[in-house]
């Protein structure tokens, strides 16, 4: 693996995993030597001159928005977070409250549209949080935060308006869908 290749991989890992990564960890993941890593890091830091920089504290590496753009980024982030969560946000939140905890794909299914952007906003605002799915470690579950519940003035989500009715109805609709789906599959077989 040459310098360029290695430095691309470091960059991609930092990007995909988010947050700082220790040199030790990089060496393990990339199966390279310490010297190769240092060379590639130097390469990466020299090549980066755009809106993203690679911050190096001697032990760990991390990608950040460049200092020149930090004011802009801060401003836009604030603006995004002060905006209404909108219809999409309310729908996703309602699905999580009444039917949750749910995985992202379950929320997508109920809403019929992709919710990844919406969930990102809800997470950033602290309205929902990700928890591990006991059934499948590769998929997160989303659940309401306690802050959200207290904001709504309830101690538990079953105090939400018509909680049992809505939860039952959504479960029923889903069961009906699954049943028809399996019937249709039989017809086609």
């Amino acid at each position, binding site marked *: 693996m040459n310098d360029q290749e290695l430095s691309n991989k470091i960059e991609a890992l930092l990007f995909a995993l988010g947050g700082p990564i220790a040199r030790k960890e990089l060496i393990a993941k990339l199966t390279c030597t310490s010297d190769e890593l240092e060379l590639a890091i130097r390469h990466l830091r020299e090549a980066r001159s755009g809106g993203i920089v690679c911050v190096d504290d001697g032990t760990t590496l991390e990608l950040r928005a460049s200092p020149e753009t930090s004011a802009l980024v801060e401003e836009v982030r604030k603006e995004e977070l002060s905006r209404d969560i909108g*219809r999409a946000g*309310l729908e996703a939140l309602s699905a999580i409250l009444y039917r949750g905890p749910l995985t992202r794909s379950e929320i997508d299914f109920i809403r*019929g549209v992709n919710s990844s952007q919406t969930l990102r906003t809800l997470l950033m605002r602290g309205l929902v949080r990700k928890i591990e799915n006991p059934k499948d470690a590769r998929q997160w579950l989303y659940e309401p935060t306690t802050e*959200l519940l207290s904001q709504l003035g309830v101690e538990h989500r079953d105090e939400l308006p018509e909680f049992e009715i809505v939860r039952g109805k959504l479960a029923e609709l889903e069961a009906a869908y699954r049943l*028809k789906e399996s*019937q*249709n599959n039989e017809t086609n077989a």
Partner: protein
Amino acid sequence: MPLNVKTPVYEGPLDLLLELIEKRKLLINDISLAQVADEYIASVNAMETLPVGETAQFVSLAATLLLIKSRSLLPNLELSGDEERDIKELQYRLAVYQLLKDSAKGLRQSFNGPMLWEGTPQAPEPMFLPDDSVTKESLRAAAQVLIQGFPQLAALPKVEVKKIMSLEDMIESLSKRISSAMRLSFREFAGKREKGEIIVGFLALLELVKQGIIMASQEKEFGDIQLQSDQVSTPTYE
């Protein structure tokens, strides 16, 4: 007696038709469409069930194919402007579908190849930024939107009877015009047969006409059609 014949699954009438043409390594044109018409109709008849929504499409395509076949056999069969347009449209749709179906195969390979992974944005410090629009009432209202818009799956009903009937209706009306074009009553030919057999009979008739196509055009001079004649010539398009 239950038949356990595995019929291949088609995405729709265009898919089936294209399959038949490609199987014979033909180009999309009047000639190839006339050639596969019988097999298309036979395949549709062999399908045990069709989704209701698509029955009409399978049948209307069968009608267009029969028009193409009839015209190839009976050059004096007059087609209306709409019918001409249907034929042109079918050829256009088939050509477009063929291209995009091939491209879909390329996409499948791309889906199996390397992908571009998304990044994980750095999580900002934990915060709670509520939104005034989030209330018990607005959440209950949003739940209603979810309930009303919940995905519904239409069951696939079985409609084999309807399918044959409508195909038959179409053939019957077409047969009238063809018989006037060649002065031979299809009713006389077909007699009182079972519904399913009429289709078969009609196709058989077309085959006979195909054999005697020159005679059919000589009809005026001699005043009659000799289906079995010494002067039979092979159709020019094969």
